[in-house]
């Protein structure tokens, strides 16, 4: 069952505080968070969060397309390297 709309999106309060502090400071930093369950809000766009995966903090650059998802979706808890083959990386 999906979450009731009247409750609004869930975000751990410390994530909001850290994001606000980072935005005000204007520094280029990774905001370390442990809250994988928090929803990505529009005010997080442009910030970089280090989302804990149980072992380390995975950097997640928040973009507009990610709004409404949970942070944990971008920080997998299992590692699979695979083969490089012809895979491409784009520098944004």
């Amino acid at each position, binding site marked *: 069952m999906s979450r009731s709309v009247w409750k609004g999106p869930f975000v751990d309060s410390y994530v909001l505080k850290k994001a606000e502090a980072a935005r005000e400071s204007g520094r280029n930093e990774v905001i370390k968070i442990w809250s994988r369950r928090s929803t990505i809000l529009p005010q997080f766009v442009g910030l970089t969060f280090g989302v804990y995966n149980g072992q380390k903090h995975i950097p997640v650059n928040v973009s507009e397309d990610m709004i409404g998802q949970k942070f944990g979706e971008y920080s997998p808890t299992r590692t699979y390297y695979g*083969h490089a083959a012809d895979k491409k990386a784009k*520098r944004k």
Partner: protein
Amino acid sequence: MSDEKTCVGAIAGAYGVNGELRIKSYCARAEDIETYAPLSDESGSRHFHLALIRPIKNGFAARITEVSTKEQADALKGTQLYARRDQLPSLADDEFYYADLIGLAVYDSGGVRLGQVKSVQNHGAADLLELQLGTSATTALLPFTQATVPLVDLAAGRIIVDPPEGAL
């Protein structure tokens, strides 16, 4: 660079009894493996002209010109298939093959060597460089962005990074 090779797939065994093979593709678009033919084995001594027949579970059924019997196909089981680096299509600016980035030396903006690129990952947000720091097993992840990685010099085999606070 032309004699560099990259592993694009593997032969998983025979498929059926008519000399067809079961092929695993590691390519971003699995069917692209056919476009890199002729492929070679790891040593480069054998070349394979590969033609995909149809997709099957976990790969493709394929035919190789030099293989006509099940016994020949079974003998190739486990063979890794390599494409020459110059067979891969050229890329736009700011696009790089994972294979080119892996192994590059990593320097900070002050010229201090930090380590080397161990792998490139993408978990859905953006591409990440996994750096092996120094000689230890410790790794760190950096977003592959203009701000964090201002210079990629493939010719010199190095990248310059400006890591955000708390990233290393």
